[in-house]
């Protein structure tokens, strides 16, 4: 599936979108981290929670659970939410 990468994480991927596989959101992010080591911890904490200023959308709907099932045709968008100052 296609994963859109925000600007703050392109130092890992060096591109704005990447292709990964995974039956769940958690599996897709694990695959993303395998391809780009370190990227997952910047968006998911050690308790498997999506970080406070990160949002993840699947086909336009906000995803809140890493157990969310995915299909290979889905589009995942990782967004840096508001964090000013």
């Amino acid at each position, binding site marked *: 599936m296609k994963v859109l990468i*925000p600007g*703050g*994480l392109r130092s890992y991927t060096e591109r704005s979108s990447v292709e990964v596989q995974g039956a769940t959101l958690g599996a897709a992010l694990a695959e993303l981290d395998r391809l780009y*080591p*370190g990227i997952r*911890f*910047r*968006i*998911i*904490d*050690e*308790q*498997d*929670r999506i*970080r406070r*200023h*990160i949002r993840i959308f699947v086909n336009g709907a906000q995803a809140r659970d890493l157990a969310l099932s995915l299909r290979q045709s889905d589009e995942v968008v990782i967004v*840096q*939410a508001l*964090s*000013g*100052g």
Partner: protein
Amino acid sequence: MAGKKSKTASRKTQAVPRAKSARNVVLLAATRKGAWLFSGDAARRTWRADGPHFLGHVVSHLVLDPRDGRTLLAAAKTGHLGPTVFRSTDKGRSWKEAVRPPAFAKAAAGEPGRAVDHTFWLTPGHRDEPGVWYAGTSPQGLFRSGDGGVSWDPFSPVNDDANYRKWMGTAQDGTPDGPKLHSIIFDPRDSAHLYFAMSGGGVHESMDGGRSFRPILQGLDVVEGFDRADPSFHDPHCVRLCPSNPDRLYQQNHCGIYRMDLPAREWVRIGKSMPKRVGDIGFPLVVHPRDDNTAWVFPMDGTTVWPRTSPEGKPAVYGTRNGGKTWRRLDAGLPAKQAWWTVKRQAMTADARDPVGLYFGTTSGELWMGRDEGRRWSCIARHLPEIYAVETAEFA
């Protein structure tokens, strides 16, 4: 982890070599928006800026490993992204991210788990333990790396000990942007003899390489109305061990300036001899590399609502040459009035030259040098982001 004693271990005062070095002093400035390296010339008169590194990252600490003179570690995060540690083995020319940054253990199902918001403090380990580093985090946690900062693990039982969990409090307790574990110190004579401090939770000592710690509270004041026997109510801001006498520690605390001389585990308040109109509240404290009677502080306004500015808008360093019996104001060259910045706990340091150079970075983004042990101050850089930490380095 069993600590190992230095082959030259001794409980006596150590002779620290006087500093005659061909290596120039480099200042490592960590700021709210990135990091800068300022390389001084041999006379420490002109400084060349190298940066920003990690532009946009909140960098809490940037530290050189003095054991190899080339490895730098930077504790960083951004407003959006989780925390990490960057590592350079070529004096900052290139950086690589830690493979496993400091992170708490995964909580059991149904239990609330802690997540590191930022790594706040970095300490390179003992010279007999190459590759060992320690890190303190917010929320408060103690971590160790055995491979030069590439991978990190929770260190010692304190992160999960029931008493320590109670004393640490939660992310909501303590310092406005989260309670910090800081001032991780080891005895240069004995790598098993460790200290750390918590901005909410007191100063703690281990004699067994971190397998156990105990608080050192005797002699310390707490805010009126609270129980001084409870570590939760103790707020050390900065603790330093004297390199020339590892039995002597100084502490700048929420309630004053203190000194402790082993074997007594009792803090003595030495800040009462500060001028009353200035007081003895502040964050940073620096010790002389070769004289255990000399230390410097940067007082701030800790009255009423805690403005955390220079008292009366007149910044000054205060230095003692007699272990805290008397203090001298050192403000030549600093703004005489209407300067409302202050200096954070990691943002003041000293080099090891003779005479010692003092340095501090301000909340307004200025980097200052106190030549001749603070007698004359001059500004090295202006217009930087808010400065969180300043360390000195000498590259190999």
